[in-house]
């Protein structure tokens, strides 16, 4: 068996197996010693990577496995997933819109607006990576806040949050008020974090 034939046989075997194949098994089949098989596999592996083929050979302990090239993962997933992308339900869209326009917001805030428990929907949006956690709010209970993600921007064809369609005017006034409040708040928070950690304010001060 010459090198070319060995390569072809090993390629066929690793292809059909899909799973990792112990080197010993290949040695037994082809009547070759371990060094030979390992070196042919390595040659194949190098060839696949160097030529940037769509497949790869990986060495796992005493086995070799053929798998698809990681660079092609997105195309592979797209081709093999036959599901059409699911669309968000109206409640989910509403929660997302609230988060998008008023971020960062807590779940309590969303529920206050919607009047219904929204934990499931928030969980769903997190899972879909449309929103992410945005730190805890420093109020009793330290609730988590949420903000939108890059996936959100991409899904809605937005370059940035500035591209969000403008809110109806009445709400805009409120939004501005909120912004003022927020900036005031930021100044306050900055002032606080600037205090050295080693010397917290005297106990009890400003607490009640």
């Amino acid at each position, binding site marked *: 068996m010459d090198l070319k034939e060995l390569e072809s046989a090993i390629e066929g075997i690793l292809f*059909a*197996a*899909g799973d990792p194949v112990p080197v010993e098994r290949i040695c037994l089949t082809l009547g070759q010693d371990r060094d030979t098989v390992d070196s042919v596999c390595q040659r194949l592996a190098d060839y696949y990577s160097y030529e940037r083929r769509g497949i790869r050979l990986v060495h796992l302990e005493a086995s070799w496995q053929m798998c*698809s090239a990681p660079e092609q*993962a997105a195309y*592979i*997933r797209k081709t*093999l*997933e036959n599901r059409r*992308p699911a669309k*968000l339900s*109206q409640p989910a*869209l*509403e929660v*997302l*819109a*609230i988060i*998008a326009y*008023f971020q*960062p*917001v*807590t779940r309590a*805030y969303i529920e206050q*607006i*919607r*009047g219904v428990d929204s934990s499931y929907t928030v969980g769903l949006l997190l*899972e*879909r*990576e*449309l929103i992410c956690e945005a730190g805890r*709010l*420093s*109020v*009793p209970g*330290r*609730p988590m806040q949420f903000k939108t993600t890059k*996936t*959100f921007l991409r*899904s*809605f*064809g937005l370059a940035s949050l500035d*591209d*969000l*369609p403008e*809110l*109806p005017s009445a*709400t805009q006034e409120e939004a501005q008020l*909120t912004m003022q*409040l*927020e900036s005031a*708040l930021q100044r*306050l928070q900055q002032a*606080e974090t600037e205090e050295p950690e080693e010397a*917290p304010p005297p*106990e*009890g*001060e*400003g*607490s*009640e």
Partner: protein
Amino acid sequence: MEAPIYHLDKVVKAKQEDMEDFDGPLDLILHLLSKNKIEIRDIVISDLLDQYLDWMARREKLNLEVASEFVTMAAHLVYIKTRMLLSIDDEVAMSEMEELMAALEEHKSQETYVKIKDVTGPLSGRYEFGRDYLAKPPEPVKADNTYRYVHDRGDLLSAIRSVLARTDSRLPPPAAAFEGIVGREPYPVADKARSILDRLVQFGVARFRALFKTSRSRSEVVATFLAILELCKANRIHLAGTAEDCTVTSTVDDGPGEIDVTVESY
């Protein structure tokens, strides 16, 4: 009118003898019946007969015997059909027709079977080679929950509009607005934890209640309590006794060290 006795079996079997031509009309009738998906009662038999006689006439060697057999069969078909048309309830005619159909179908099946048997040889040869093309199991595709539906940005606007419509455009002030008022954090839990550990290192043991003695506000009590919980969780302190009389001891001797708290402050 008495039904002529007509043996279909003979007609079908005629092929084996020297009357091969029967293959033709029989096949044709069959062909027309099956391929065109028409019922035998819909066939205009006279036309069928015309076509056949036409064909026979053009043949160099007119086999009279065959032709007459065909005419007999066709005539019988016509006869059956006439009876069916005259009286739909003529069960005898119906069953005769069924019989004829069955015989025709049988004949056709046999023909097909011969052809199929002929072709199994070449197919078998192909399989001999083809079965060595081996497929592999599909690679598992890693699940990806990322949202991929492409929206119009207007979807967001209409969603927020419907929210606002329900709330009469009144939104609660953002929670962040209260941060400055209620959210001051004078008591970092980590600091509390460190001071508790310091105290235990210094005195070896402390009463649970004593840890709260210096607390001057509810917030400080909460921060101290959270610190104790964090230290218990981290296995840094040990609580023993009853609700009324509980002592706290350090589980390690070597100073406070790093304290990893999950709650930063209160």
